C-alpha cells in the first residue's frame, strides 16, 4: 500500500511570508526519506505540507503540486481530511489523547470517525497496531489504563500505533525522537526499519547520525539568511549525501562547519 509522492515547484507560505521555496522531489515508496537541515530551514513546514497539516495554521497556504500516485493532493476536489487519512503523522512530542485509554488511543482514528466495527475486529486491530509499534508486550495487560501514564518512549510508540491503525500509505514523522532518551530512540529506529516494508516513511530529524542510520534517501534543507525562504539544497541517496555530497553547503553542514 506504500505510495510514491511527487512534489513539484512547491512554495509554502505563512500569510505573506514565503517559508519554503521551489521544492522538487520524488519520494520513493517503501523507503525511509530523511530531511535534515538547520533550525528554521523549513523542513518541518515541508513535511506538514505533504499531508495538508500546514493549512491548519491560520493564514498558511501552499502553491505548487503534490501528487501521490497520480492524484493531486491539493486539487480542487481533494478533501484534506481524506489526504490525512492516507498520510499519517507522528509528532515531535508524544501526544496521546489524555481522556482515552491505551486501547481507545489506538483505535482513535476509527472511533473518532464513527466507523462501526465489531469488538473482535477492533481487538484484532489494536493488537496488530500495537505489535506493529513494538508496544504490545509492554502494554497488553493494561490496555484500559490512560495512555498518558506511559513513559515518553512508550507514548511515542503508542502514537505510532495510533497512526498505523488507520492503515495509511505514508507515515510522516516530525522529529519523533527529539523528546526521548537514547534507549527509546533506538526502539523507535528499529521500529522504523520494520515499518518501511509497509509504508513510505518521511522523517524530519536534527540528528544526522539518525538520518545516516535509518534512511535510504536524504534531503538537505538550508536557507541563505534570516527572513529568506528555505530551499531543498540536495536530495540524494543517504550514502552519497554522507560520503560525497554534490553541494558544498551540504558537506559543510554534515561535517559540522556550519554557523
Amino acid at each position: 500500500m506504500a505510495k510514491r509522492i511527487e512534489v513539484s515547484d512547491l512554495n509554502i507560505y505563512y500569510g505573506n511570508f514565503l517559508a519554503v521555496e521551489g521544492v522538487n522531489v520524488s519520494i520513493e515508496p517503501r523507503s525511509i526519506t530523511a530531511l535534515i537541515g538547520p533550525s528554521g530551514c523549513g523542513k518541518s513546514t515541508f513535511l506538514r505540507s505533504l499531508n495538508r497539516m500546514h493549512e491548519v495554521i491560520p493564514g498558511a497556504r501552499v502553491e505548487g503540486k503534490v501528487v501521490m500516485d497520480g492524484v493531486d493532493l491539493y486539487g480542487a476536489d481533494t478533501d484534506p481530511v481524506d489526504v490525512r487519512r492516507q498520510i499519517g503523522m507522528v509528532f515531535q512530542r508524544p501526544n496521546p489523547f489524555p481522556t482515552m485509554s491505551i486501547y481507545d488511543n489506538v483505535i482513535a482514528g476509527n472511533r473518532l470517525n464513527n466507523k462501526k466495527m465489531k469488538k473482535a475486529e477492533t481487538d484484532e486491530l489494536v493488537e496488530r497496531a500495537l505489535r506493529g509499534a513494538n508496544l504490545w508486550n509492554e502494554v497488553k495487560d493494561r490496555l484500559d489504563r490512560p495512555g498518558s501514564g506511559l513513559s515518553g518512549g512508550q507514548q511515542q510508540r503508542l502514537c505510532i500505533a495510533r497512526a498505523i491503525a488507520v492503515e495509511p500509505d505514508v507515515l510522516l514523522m516530525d522529529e519523533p525522537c527529539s523528546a526521548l532518551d537514547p534507549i527509546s530512540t533506538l526502539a523507535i529506529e528499529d521500529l522504523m526499519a520494520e515499518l518501511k516494508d509497509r509504508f513510505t516513511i518521511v522523517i524530519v530529524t536534527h540528528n544526522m547520525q539518525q538520518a545516516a542510520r535509518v534512511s535510504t534517501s536524504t534531503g538537505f534543507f538550508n536557507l541563505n539568511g534570516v527572513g529568506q525562504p528555505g530551499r531543498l539544497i540536495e536530495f540524494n541517496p543517504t550514502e552519497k549525501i554522507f560520503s560525497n555530497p554534490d553541494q558544498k553547503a551540504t558537506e559543510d553542514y554534515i561535517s559540522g562547519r556550519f554557523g
Partner: protein
Amino acid sequence: MTATKAPTPPPVQQRVVRRAGDRIFAGSAKGSGIFILLVLAGVAAFLISEAIPALTAPAEDIPGGEGLGSYIAPLVLGTLLGAVLALLVATPLAVGIALFVTYYAPRRIAAGLGYVIDLLAAIPSVVYGFWGLAVLAPALVPFHVWAADNLSWLPIFAGPASTSGRTMLTVGLVLAVMILPIISAIAREVFGQAPALHREAALALGATRWEMIKMAVLPYGKSGVIAGAMLGLGRALGETMAVAIVLSGGAGATLNLISSSNPSTIASNIALRFPEATGLGINTLVASGLVLFVITLAVNMLARWIVNRRADFSGAN
C-alpha cells in the same frame, strides 16, 4: 483517492455528509456568536423603543410632573453617590485583603482565605439587602447620631440623623461589601503575577517586606487595581435589590448621607415602581434604565480599556 466527481457512490456520500457536518457545526458556532451581537443590539433597540414615548411626552405627564430630566436627575445623583461611596470604602480594603492573601498570610492557608473572600461574591444580592436592613442599618444608627452631632459642618453629614439607619451611608457600605470580592479578586491576581525576579531583587537589596511590595508589587499591579475598581463601580451602579430593600429613598437630590430623606437610585427605583407602573410610567422607568445602561457601559468600557492596555504592556511576562 476520492478526489473528483466520484465514480463510486459510497465515498462521495460519505464526503458530502462529512463536509456538511463541518459546515453545519462551524455555521452554528458562528451563528451563536452573531446571535449574541444581535441580542445586545436588541437590548439597546428595545430599550430605546420603549423609552421613546417618555422622551416625547409633555413634561407634565411624566411622573412628578416636571419632565423627564428632573425625574431622572436625582436618581442619577443617588446612583452615583452610593456607588462612589462604595468604591471609596472598598478599594483600599480590597487592596489590603489582596496583599494579605498574596504576601502576608501563611502560604498553606492563603488559597483558602482567598476562597473565603470569593464566597462574599456568591451571596445573592437580595440576601445582602436582608442583612443590610436587619443588621447593618440598626448597627450604624449610633454613628449616624454621632456624625450629625460632631461632623454636621460637612455637607454629607448635615443631618438630621436618620433613626432607622436606612440611609445612603448604609447603602454605600452594603455595596462596598458586595464589590469587595470583585476588586480583591482582580487585585490578588495582578499582585500574584508581579515578577518574582523584581521581588527577589528588592529583598536581596535588604528591603523589608513592605518596601519590597512598594517597589516591586504595587507599581506592577496599579492598573489592575484600577480596572478592578472600575468593574466594581459598574456592579455597584447597577445593583438593584440590596438598595431597594435598604434605602428609604425617593426624596429629591441631596448630598446628605445620613438623613432619612435620600435620593433613590435608578435601579432600585425601577424595581420598586415597575410592578405597579402603567402606561407612560413604564416608559419613564425604561428611559431611566437606558440612562443606567449607558452609564455602566461607559464605566465597563473604560475598565476593559485599562485592562487591555495593561495586557499590551506586560506581553513579555
